[in-house]
C-alpha cells in the first residue's frame, strides 16, 4: 500500500453542552484515510459517528466543540487554520452529503442554483459552465430528464432523486473527500438500491475518497474498503471490509453481527375464528382511497406482519382497525362480530380488546405523567382497580416487562432510555388485558441490540398471554424474526399474503420479489450481483 494519505485524525475529542456543563461525545478517536479510499464508520445512535464526520471538515455543530486532538487534511491543520481557510475547503475540497436531502436542500432555490453556488463562490468555474456541468453530473447519476430536473425546486423532486442530486452537488467542485452521513437511511429499500448504485459509481469514476457513515452493516459492506466500528465515542476496532465481515475480533462487533439471529419458532397454521378479520375494506381521506378492498385475518397467538414501503397504506389499515378512520366500504370483525366503524361509537369493552404500541415512544408517552399513572390508568379505567389492587397490578406489569418496580414506578418517561420507554408502551397496552395488540414500527427507532430485546419480550408475552399481534413494519429482517404470516402491501392493495416460510421461500408476485431482493445482505458482492441479475451495468 503506497497510497498517499489524505486525512489524518489523531486523538480527536469532541464535547457537547447540556446546560452549562460539557460532556464528551467523542473520546479520542484516530482515523487515517488515503486518497481514493472509502472508509465506513459504523455505530449505533450516540456513537459519535456524524460528529466525527463533521469534524473531518473542521466543523462542529452549535453546542459542540472540538476539545482535543489534531485534524490534518492534506497538510492543512484544520484546527489551527483560520476560519476563512476552513471555509475555503468546505464544499471545494471536502463535501458533505446529508441524511435527509429533502430537508437539506433550501426550499427557496432551484436545484441547479444550489449546485452552482459552490463552484461560483469558490471560484472554480463560472455559472454557465457550472450549470452545464450539473446537467452532465445529473446524467451520470442516472437522474431522469437531466437537462430539466435542475430547474425544479426541491419539493418538486422525489426523495431518492434528491439524494442523488445532493451527491451530484457534493461533486460539483470535484472534491478530494466526501462525507456521506447516512445518505440512504430515510429511503425505502427499493429506492435505496438506486442511490447506493449511483453513489458507488460516481465515487469510483472520480476516484474520490469518502467517509461513509451508517448504522447499517449490510449497506456499508457494499460501499466501503475499510470499516471502523464506534461505540459511545470510542473506537472498537477497524479492518478492511472483507476480513471484518469474515472474522470480527471484538465481542461488541460480534454482537452486532449476531443481532438478527432471533427467530420465532414456527407455528402450526391457525384455525378457528380469527380475533380480528378485516373484510374488503376501502378507506381514505377526502376523495383519495388509501386502502383499496383489502382483507386479512389475525388469529390468537399469531403474529401477522404487514409489510410495505412508505405510502403503501399499512398504517392506515391499523387506523381502520382501531376505529380512528371509519372505512368507506367493508368492515372489521372482532371474534366474528362486526365492530362499530368509529372508535367513538365503540363500547369501553370493545376499546379494551385492541391496544396499540407506537413507533416513537417519545411521543406515545405523556412526558408529564409518572409511570404509575401511565400504566395504571388503563387498569383503573377498564378493570376498575383501585388502591392496593392497582398498586399490585402496576408492580406486576413492570415486572412483566423486566423493569424493577420499586426503582421505576415514580419516574417520568424522560428519565428512561429509548428501549425502556418502548417497554412502558408495551406495559400500557398489557394493562388493558387486550386480545389484539397493534405494533406500529415498534422497533424501527431503536438500536439493533435493543430491538432484539423488545422482539424477544413481545414473543414471550404472546405465548404467556395468548395475544394476537398485528406487526406493521418496513423492515424485512424484523419480519423474518417475529412473523407467522405476512401481508405484503403496495399502493393500498394487498399484493400477497401467506405464511412467512412460503413467502420468503417462493414469492409469487414480482413486487414481493423486488422487495425481498432489495434488502441488503452482509456480503460485499451482494450489490454487484444483484445489479447484474437485474441487468444493470454495475
Amino acid at each position: 500500500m503506497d497510497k498517499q494519505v489524505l486525512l489524518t485524525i489523531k486523538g480527536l475529542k469532541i464535547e457537547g453542552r447540556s446546560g452549562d456543563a460539557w460532556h464528551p461525545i467523542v473520546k479520542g478517536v484516530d482515523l487515517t484515510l488515503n486518497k481514493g479510499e472509502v472508509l465506513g464508520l459504523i455505530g449505533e445512535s450516540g456513537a459519535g459517528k456524524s460528529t466525527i464526520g463533521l469534524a473531518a471538515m473542521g466543523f462542529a455543530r452549535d453546542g459542540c466543540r472540538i476539545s482535543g486532538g489534531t485534524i490534518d487534511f492534506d497538510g492543512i491543520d484544520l484546527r489551527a487554520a483560520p476560519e476563512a481557510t476552513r471555509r475555503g475547503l468546505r464544499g471545494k475540497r471536502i463535501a458533505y452529503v446529508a441524511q435527509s436531502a429533502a430537508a437539506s436542500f433550501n426550499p427557496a432555490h432551484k436545484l441547479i442554483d444550489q449546485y452552482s453556488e459552490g463552484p461560483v463562490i469558490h471560484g472554480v468555474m463560472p455559472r454557465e459552465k457550472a450549470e452545464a456541468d450539473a446537467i452532465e453530473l445529473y446524467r451520470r447519476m442516472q437522474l431522469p430528464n437531466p437537462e430539466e430536473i435542475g430547474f425544479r425546486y426541491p419539493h418538486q423532486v422525489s426523495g431518492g432523486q434528491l439524494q442523488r442530486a445532493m451527491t451530484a452537488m457534493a461533486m460539483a467542485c470535484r472534491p478530494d473527500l466526501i462525507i456521506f452521513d447516512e445518505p440512504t437511511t430515510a429511503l425505502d429499500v427499493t429506492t435505496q438500491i438506486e442511490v447506493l448504485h449511483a453513489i458507488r459509481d460516481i465515487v469510483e469514476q472520480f476516484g474520490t475518497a469518502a467517509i461513509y457513515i451508517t448504522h447499517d452493516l449490510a449497506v456499508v459492506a457494499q460501499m466501503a474498503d475499510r470499516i471502523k466500528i464506534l461505540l459511545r465515542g470510542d473506537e472498537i476496532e477497524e479492518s478492511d471490509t472483507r476480513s471484518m465481515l469474515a472474522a470480527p475480533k471484538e465481542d461488541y462487533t460480534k454482537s452486532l453481527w449476531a443481532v438478527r439471529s432471533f427467530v420465532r419458532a414456527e407455528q402450526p397454521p391457525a384455525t378457528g375464528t380469527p380475533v380480528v378479520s378485516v373484510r374488503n375494506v376501502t378507506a381514505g381521506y377526502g376523495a383519495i382511497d388509501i386502502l383499496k378492498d383489502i382483507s386479512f385475518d389475525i388469529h390468537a397467538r399469531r403474529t401477522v406482519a404487514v409489510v410495505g414501503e412508505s405510502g403503501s397504506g399499512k398504517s392506515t389499515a391499523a387506523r381502520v382497525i382501531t376505529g380512528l378512520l371509519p372505512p368507506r366500504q367493508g368492515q372489521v370483525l372482532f371474534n366474528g362480530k362486526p365492530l362499530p366503524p368509529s372508535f367513538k361509537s365503540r363500547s369501553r369493552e370493545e376499546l379494551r380488546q385492541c391496544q396499540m404500541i407506537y413507533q416513537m415512544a417519545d411521543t406515545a408517552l405523556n412526558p408529564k405523567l409518572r409511570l404509575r399513572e401511565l400504566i395504571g390508568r388503563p387498569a383503573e379505567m377498564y378493570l376498575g382497580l383501585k388502591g392496593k389492587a392497582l398498586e399490585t397490578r402496576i408492580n406486576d406489569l413492570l415486572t412483566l416487562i423486566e423493569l424493577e418496580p420499586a426503582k421505576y414506578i415514580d419516574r417520568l418517561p424522560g428519565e428512561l432510555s429509548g428501549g425502556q420507554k418502548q417497554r412502558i408502551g408495551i406495559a400500557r397496552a398489557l394493562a388493558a388485558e387486550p386480545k389484539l395488540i397493534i405494533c406500529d414500527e415498534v422497533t424501527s427507532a431503536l438500536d439493533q441490540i435493543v430491538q432484539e430485546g423488545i422482539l424477544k419480550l413481545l414473543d414471550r408475552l404472546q405465548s404467556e398471554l395468548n395475544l394476537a399481534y398485528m406487526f406493521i413494519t418496513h423492515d424485512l429482517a424484523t419480519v423474518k424474526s417475529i412473523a407467522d404470516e405476512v401481508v405484503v402491501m403496495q399502493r393500498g392493495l394487498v399484493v400477497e399474503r401467506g405464511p412467512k416460510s412460503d413467502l420468503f421461500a417462493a414469492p409469487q408476485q414480482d413486487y414481493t420479489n423486488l422487495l425481498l431482493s432489495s434488502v441488503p445482505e452482509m456480503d460485499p458482492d451482494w450489490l454487484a450481483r444483484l445489479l447484474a441479475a437485474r441487468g444493470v451495468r454495475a
Partner: protein
Amino acid sequence: MTVLLSLIIGLALFFAIGIASRAALRSAAPAHHKPMFRDMPLTASFGLAVILFYVVVAILAPAIAPFGEGEVLGAQYLPWESPYYLGTDKLGRDMLTRLIYGARNTVGIAFATTALAFVLGSLLGIWAALVGGKPDQFLSRFVDALMAIPALIFSLLLLTIFGTSVLTLILVIAAVDATRVYRLARSVAQGIVVMDYIEAARLRGEGMWHLIRREILPNAMAPLVAEFGLRFCFVFLSISALSFLGLGIKPPTADWGSMVRENATLITFGDITPLLPAGAIALLTVAVNFVVDWQLHRASGLKE
C-alpha cells in the same frame, strides 16, 4: 448633561439590583432549582427583584403610604419638599401616596383582568383544538374576525356602549384579551393533540375533561405561563392607556395612567413629576418582560 447623568445612574442601579438579587436567589433557592438560577441573566434577576418590590408595595400600601389615598392636603403642584417628597398633584394630593396606592389599584385590576382572560381563553382554546372539525372552525373564524378589530379600538367601542366603570373595564378588557389567549392556547394544544399519547388516551375512551386536565394542560403549562406574563404586560398597558385617555380607572381612585393625564401640563414646564407614574408603569412592564424573555429562552434552549 442630565440625560447622560440619569442614564449612568439608571444603568448603575440596574446592575446593582440585578447582581444583588441574583446572589440572593442563588443562595435562597432550594437545591433542585439551583441550576435554573445559576446562569440567569442580569435582566431576569433585576426583573424578579422589581416585581417583588411592586408586590410588597401593593400589599402594604396603607401601611407605608404617608397620607390617605384621596386626602387633599394643600396647594396644587407643590415642589418636591418634605413632607411631600414628590410634591402634590393638581388637586393638592400627595404624589408619593398616590403612587403607592396606584401599585395596588392599577396592578391589582390588571392582574384580575389577565387571570379572567386566561381562564376563559385557554380553556376554550384547548377545547377547540381537542374537538376539532366544525365547532373549532366556527369558533376560530369568529375569534379571527374579532381579532381583526384592533384591541384598543374594540375596547373603546365596548366602553362606549357599556359605560366606563371599573367592573365593565375588567370585563371588556378580559373579553378582548381572551381572544388572543384563545389563539395561543389553541395553537399550543394543536401541537399536543397530534401526539400519539393523546391518540392513545382517546382510543382508551377518556373523556374531554380528563384529556384537558391530565394530558394537555401539564404539557401546555410552560408556554401558557410565559404568555401570562406577556398578556399581563399587554393588559396593564391597555388599562393604563385607557386611563390616560380618561376612559379607564377614574379619580379619586389612585391610578398611574390617569395620574399622568391629570398632571401632563407640568411636562411643558420641564417638570418631570407626571413622568413618575408613567415610569412606574414602564418599570413593571420591563421587569415582567425581562423575566418572561428569560423563561422563553430557557424553554427554547432546553429543546435543542
